[in-house]
């Protein structure tokens, strides 16, 4: 078994792929005074000013592009491009993932010093677009929409004619379960959410120390994916205005369902990505995990003793016979408005995410699940992940599931919605209030924030 500290650290790694700033932040030390905060802001600005140039190049030398990203081992993938493109050299600058990087990119862009290319999570794109950080590259990329699933492509176009990024990886959701424990308790893999609830009850009846799974108030991206599967559309562009419906019927249904199971005490209510959760997955206290295609990497990290004991199946469905899933995580490669060479940067972004050689390297070196359809059938994905060696069809099944991922349009203030999710659902669990109230809180906070900032809202 890995050291407990190592297991806790794992959450940092996976906050990249998933969402969430679960990482405890400590920028300013113990005493965050007004001055301390402002000093830090200035210091960051100074570092940025000194640190990075947005691709200035001499006329005779090659074009130099800077690329901020957090995917592991990305530099070795980029090396392939650099060798075959002597005129356009790309340098990867490794970043802390997810929300931390959004904050940093926003600051850099404010100073006019953003890199040429950034890795951007889908739900962060509207925020970055709204702040004029990322550029529309539709004029450079041609028609590549066929390369990607419809749902994925929608996340980089927001349903408009613009192209704000090239999809890199996706996170179609699926169900992971302990084959051995399901056998021991004589359970079958649930195909509908109704069966899932029955299974949860059966687990509690068989062994009061175990739960089927947990509802995490710490993972808004996870809940968003479950709501998508049920048919939720949290944001929509209606003409010239945003239509925000986080408390739509589908989301309320999902909230009510999980709230009921938590109130019944057949589903645990503790957050994911804690040492407690790691232990529970490792020792079989939790029998299943509703997660996404990148799940095996996490399981390997937190529950290393259970290799070969897990199975993967499609997410349970709301209507029997239906085939839908939502997405948790995933990111794109975007070109910034600060770039002096948007055309070359866009060309690189397309190459990185669609060229067979590049996507194969991304799968092998960076361990991502590629967004490109052709890459999903790549030879690199013929073998199952090592942790799932017992399930040889892992990736062909994953590819089938990925095709059923529904499209989603993210809004310009997902950050507000997500931070409200954590507080509202945390409070609902602690206080024992209905989960549907928490959904209404999310809607209210999101709409208020958009109204205060002046976004046009459809009424």
């Amino acid at each position, binding site marked *: 078994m890995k050291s407990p500290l190592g297991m806790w650290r794992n959450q940092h790694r996976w906050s990249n792929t998933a969402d969430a700033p679960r990482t405890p932040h400590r920028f300013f030390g113990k005493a965050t005074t007004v001055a301390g905060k402002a000093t830090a802001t200035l210091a960051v600005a100074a570092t940025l000013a000194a640190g990075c140039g947005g691709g200035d190049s001499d006329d005779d030398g090659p074009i130099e592009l800077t690329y901020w990203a957090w995917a592991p081992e990305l530099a070795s993938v980029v090396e392939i491009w650099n060798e075959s493109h002597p005129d356009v050299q790309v340098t990867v600058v490794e970043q802390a993932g997810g929300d931390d990087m959004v904050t940093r990119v926003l600051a850099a862009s404010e100073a006019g010093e953003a890199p040429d290319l950034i890795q951007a999570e889908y739900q962060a794109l509207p925020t970055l677009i709204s702040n004029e950080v990322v550029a529309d590259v539709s004029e450079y990329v041609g028609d590549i929409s066929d390369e990607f699933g419809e749902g994925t492509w929608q996340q980089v176009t927001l349903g408009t004619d613009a192209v704000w990024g090239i999809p890199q990886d996706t996170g179609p959701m699926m169900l992971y379960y302990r084959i051995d424990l399901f056998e021991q308790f004589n359970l079958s893999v649930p195909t509908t959410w109704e069966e899932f609830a029955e299974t949860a009850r059966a687990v509690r009846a068989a062994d009061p120390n175990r739960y089927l799974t947990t509802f995490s108030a710490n993972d808004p991206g996870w809940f968003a994916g479950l709501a998508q599967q049920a048919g939720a559309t949290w944001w929509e562009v209606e003409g010239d205005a945003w239509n925000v419906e986080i408390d739509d019927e589908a989301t309320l249904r999902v909230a009510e369902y999980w709230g009921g199971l938590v109130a019944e005490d057949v589903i645990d209510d503790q957050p994911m990505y804690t040492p407690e959760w790691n232990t529970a997955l490792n020792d079989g206290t939790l029998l299943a995990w509703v997660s996404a295609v990148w799940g095996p990497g996490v399981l390997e990290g937190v529950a290393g003793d259970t290799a070969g004991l897990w199975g993967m199946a499609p997410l349970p469905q709301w209507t029997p016979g239906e085939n839908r899933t939502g997405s948790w995580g995933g990111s794109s490669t975007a070109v910034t408005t600060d770039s002096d060479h948007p055309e070359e940067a866009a060309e690189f972004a397309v190459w990185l995410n669609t060229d067979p050689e590049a996507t194969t390297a991304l799968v092998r070196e960076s361990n991502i699940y590629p967004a490109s359809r052709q890459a999903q059938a790549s030879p690199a994905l013929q073998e199952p992940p090592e942790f799932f060696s017992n399930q040889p069809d892992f990736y062909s099944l994953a590819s089938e599931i990925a095709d059923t991922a529904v499209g989603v349009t993210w809004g310009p*203030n997902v950050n507000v919605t997500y931070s409200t999710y954590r507080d509202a659902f*945390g409070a609902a669990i602690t206080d024992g209030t209905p989960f549907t109230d928490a959904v209404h809180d999310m809607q209210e906070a999101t709409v208020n924030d958009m109204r205060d900032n002046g976004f046009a809202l459809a009424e």
Partner: protein
Amino acid sequence: MATTEIQPASAAAPPAQGARRRWPRLAPYLFLAPAIVLFVLFLLLPIIYTVYLSLRRVQVSGLGLGPGARSEVWAGLDNYRDAVTDMELWRGALRVLLYGGILTPVMLGAALLFALLLDAQRVRARRFARISIFLPYAVPAVTATLMWGFLYLPAVSPFHYLLEELGLPQVDLLGRVSVFFSLANIAVWGGTGFNMIVIYTALRAIPAEIYESARIDGCSELRIALRIKIPMVMPALIMTTVFSVIATLQVFSEPTTLRPLTNSISSTWTPLMKIYRDAFARDDIYLAAATSVVIALITLVLSLGFLRLVQRRAFQDEQ
């Protein structure tokens, strides 16, 4: 630099006197210059910038997606209005008061007790005791919280294991109420040593003759502690109280680090956490700046008020 200025002046006769007279007046400023420059650069300017930010806000038009859809405009006092009317800020303040109400007396009481014990006449392993009590202070708050976090989680905690082995009922150390004590415990563990050293140093500065005459008068060690030592270290106690109160108002690292482990701590659990969330999770640096100014002012008023209240006692020897 000083010499180069003086030499040409002393070469010419008439202005020499004037320059020599000017020099003593300039000297203090030259010595002060480095401190003033640093103060202006790293304290005054950031404060001014924060106040400036607190008066601004973002104005979006339409969908907010096209170029030029977002601009920064003057907000007047809107951010301040929003900051002080958000009940979550005051609920956070209330939580901090409760937390401080547990933390400050326990920590300072323990610090005073340890200091008195170390100062007592018959103590063995004084150095060892002093260092081992002080050592937790050297552990950064985040590290300490990570460590305590493991001790608070049932599946990985030895406490829960022991309770189970002994057949005792389990306690939830991260519940809605118990989390106050769990957090205060981390700060007590980390802060007692520092405060003990401050009080102990003050104790060592008390002249030995006072104890001698007290003993001749038949005073017991306990009475010496209560009637002589504690009153004489009052200035140190007041100082450590002020520092503790300020530190309490600014508590951030411990709850922020513990937050991912439990549903009981929200992202606005303390006022500073709310500022952090507004600035970095919600991208509203303007509201965060306004809230920062409000909290800084409150902290300032509270600290000055407390000092004024106790000034006569604290600094009577200086007057």
